[in-house]
């Protein structure tokens, strides 16, 4: 029961049109506050900001190709308890998908927030963004959007996670604003996908419109390119970790700093087992291990940490790539997590962030399922 509306764009200023829309949501009191990416006044960086006054909308830029953190964590801080007001969050599709997972994990509530998304064209890694943004970050955003929609390739390239992401459009959102397939006058299609989204769009007085004819084909073509990149990445990664020695080499630079866990939007445990004393072994224990193998790489428990994290969160992994972004030693963490998550999610017929109604795989069970994992019968030697 979604409906499409028209967002006017003056002089091709897409970011300005989005700002005007969010400004109107505040000034018409449709929402009390808007969480949105905003250029910091003191530096060429974009951070989530909770904007409560319409006159503070100036630096807001949901299209900046900058992704310093997955804002689902920020949104869940705000949605952890009811505030008694409606508010809106402008999030990337991977942030919305992570937020949906956090709601399922009881880390946030969906009832007061209106989720707004815009067709996501991806983002650079942090260092690359600073370089790309140069002296005039808002102008760089406009340039980025124009060139990406025109199908031009960019230098530097987008973050690896974004290059392999097939979700320019999130499966869930209250309001989704399209960039692909805009009409001749440059107006953007605004899709109200839920009752709350419809209320907001009506309060803003956006005129109903037909969905642009060229839109679906443009999105499909974009997604097809991303899927191809993703599948190449899957194949490359599977080959790179196929064996303990290869995996150890892959993670050889890991210093057990756990930044990837801190940056992960769906790793929600208040106290991770790896920061407790559980694996702070007795000193003599290390000697014993070293004696058994001849030499022991320190710190220990590196693969143990990554494999355990995969067991704990891979069914909720949205592939946002913040783990790689946070790694001080440039280990391609995202590639391993997305690749393995693909298999664990498929095993349970699940897709992280797809639907709030689908239970997290490890929170439920059926009495008759997975007979193939029970028993010790030898597998046939065929093949």
């Amino acid at each position: 029961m979604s409906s499409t509306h028209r967002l006017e764009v003056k002089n091709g200023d897409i970011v300005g049109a989005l700002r005007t829309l969010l400004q109107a949501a505040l000034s018409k009191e449709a929402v009390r506050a808007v969480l949105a990416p905003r250029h910091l006044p003191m530096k060429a960086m974009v951070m989530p900001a909770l904007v409560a006054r319409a006159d503070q909308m100036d630096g807001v830029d949901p299209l900046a190709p900058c992704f310093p953190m997955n804002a689902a964590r920020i949104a869940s801080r705000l949605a952890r308890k009811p505030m008694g007001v409606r508010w809106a969050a402008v999030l990337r599709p991977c942030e919305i998908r992570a937020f949906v997972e956090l709601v399922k994990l009881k880390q946030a509530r969906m009832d007061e927030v209106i989720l707004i998304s815009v067709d996501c064209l991806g983002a650079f890694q942090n260092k690359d963004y600073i370089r790309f943004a140069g002296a005039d970050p808002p102008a760089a955003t406009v340039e980025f959007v124009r060139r990406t929609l025109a199908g031009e390739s960019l230098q530097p390239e987008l973050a690896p996670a974004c290059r392999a992401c097939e979700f320019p459009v999130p499966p869930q959102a209250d309001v989704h604003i399209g960039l692909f397939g805009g009409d001749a006058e440059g107006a953007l299609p605004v899709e109200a996908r839920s009752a709350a989204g419809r209320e907001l769009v009506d309060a803003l007085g956006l005129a109903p419109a037909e969905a642009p004819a060229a839109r679906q084909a443009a999105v499909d073509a974009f997604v097809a390119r991303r899927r191809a990149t993703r599948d190449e990445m899957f194949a490359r990664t599977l080959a790179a970790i196929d064996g303990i020695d290869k995996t150890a080499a892959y993670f050889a630079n890991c210093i057990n700093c756990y930044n990837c866990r801190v940056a992960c939007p769906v790793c929600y445990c208040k106290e991770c087992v790896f920061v407790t004393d559980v694996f702070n072994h007795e000193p003599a224990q290390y000697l014993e291990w070293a004696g058994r193998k001849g030499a022991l790489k320190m710190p220990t428990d590196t693969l143990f940490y990554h494999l355990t994290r995969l067991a704990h969160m891979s069914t909720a992994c949205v592939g946002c790539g913040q783990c790689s972004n946070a790694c001080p030693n440039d280990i391609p963490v995202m590639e391993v997590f997305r690749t393995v998550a693909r298999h664990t999610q498929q095993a349970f017929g699940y897709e992280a962030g797809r639907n709030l109604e689908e239970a997290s795989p490890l929170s439920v069970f059926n009495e008759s399922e997975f007979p193939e994992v029970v028993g010790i019968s030898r597998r046939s030697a065929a093949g």
Partner: protein
Amino acid sequence: MQDFEPTIVAFVCNWCTYTAADLAGTSRLSYPKNVRMIRVMCTGMVDPQYVIKALLQGADGVLVSGCHPGDCHYINGNFKARRRIKLLKEILPRFGFEEERLRLTWIGASDGIRFAEIMRELVVQLKALGPSQANLAMAI
């Protein structure tokens, strides 16, 4: 590979498989000494990290064994365990662990004979598979 003796870590539930192991003992059934048993109250409490730690730390195989479906002392712990084993069997093979290194069985409290049979069969299978790569790796 003649001399290879696999190490098996078995997480067995208090109410069924541990009792079956006890019965195998009191019945004077013999089975290989390769298994190191860890008694847990229910297979539903076996966190995947226990299995991962065992496999990285020297086990050639891990067995999780509990009550038959419908017999769980805690109603459904074994169903939860089955999902976690399914999960691990998706993760571990990507990193080169043969799927056969992780096994889930249901062995009831009166199945002492079956317990001994399964231990014998596991040892045969793991000997055929050879030592786990993780035992040879210096960096884990």
